[in-house]
């Protein structure tokens, strides 16, 4: 089971055992756990705010207005980044578990998903922020 439970000392660096604690693989698991929990908490708030469509168009539009605030907009970029990492790393975990060569390439796959993450986040951040930044500095 790749990282379902808290890491144990899987061996030591001496004697050729695999060192898990402090290794990059451990940090990829830590980040997976943090991003998953963060997303779950956001989802709680997000379903509540969307439920306002059952109250009135006005109530909904008011709460959605807060998402368009520049600071909150920045948090959205962070949230998308967190979910994107969790999704990409989740695919990597599945490949490690189900693909025969997965365990052998787990480290290369980590670098690959980090590369994909950067490549997606650069244009993604741009499109999420253009309107906000031009409203702030461009004037009308």
């Amino acid at each position: 089971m790749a990282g379902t439970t808290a890491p144990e000392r899987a061996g030591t660096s001496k004697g050729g055992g695999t060192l898990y604690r402090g290794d990059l693989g451990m940090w990829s698991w830590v980040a997976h756990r943090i991003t998953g929990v963060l997303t779950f908490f956001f989802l709680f708030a997000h379903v509540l705010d969307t439920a306002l469509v059952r109250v009135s168009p006005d109530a909904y539009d008011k709460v959605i207005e807060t998402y368009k605030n520049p600071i909150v907009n920045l948090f959205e970029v962070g949230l998308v980044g967190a979910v994107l990492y969790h999704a990409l790393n989740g695919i990597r975990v599945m490949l490690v578990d189900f693909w025969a060569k997965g365990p052998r390439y787990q480290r290369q796959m980590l670098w690959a998903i980090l590369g994909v993450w950067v490549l997606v986040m650069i244009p993604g951040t741009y499109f999420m922020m253009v309107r906000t930044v031009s409203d702030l500095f461009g004037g009308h």
Partner: protein
Amino acid sequence: MSELTLARPRTPRRPAARRNNFELYSWLFMRISGVALVVLVLGHLFIMNILDGGVHRINFGFVAGRWASPFWQFWDLAMLWLAQIHGGNGLRTVINDYARKDATRFWLKVLLYCSMVLIIALGTYVIFTFDPNITD
């Protein structure tokens, strides 16, 4: 020869593992739901936050336009249920890992399960009863 009574030294302190495959199915579910969530969640984030002006074009009318289509209703319903069960099951593992006292563990899980039921019920209700002419 006097009888030496020792508590059976190798007796595990915790009760024997439950004799069912719950944890196996839970492990499998995390992976199967993960595949579906890649499409549902990343698609949702792309459409809502990046495409065509992103969050700035979202308002009541935008939601009404989307939920006029059964396709997006089903998309959002599936995403709601899968994300709640996947995330909730993930959080159950996190609670099992870090809660030290049985009582803490128990109450954190009660809180977790209540929040899952609340969010799934509320979200499902909203998707099925959405009324674009609510103010009329």
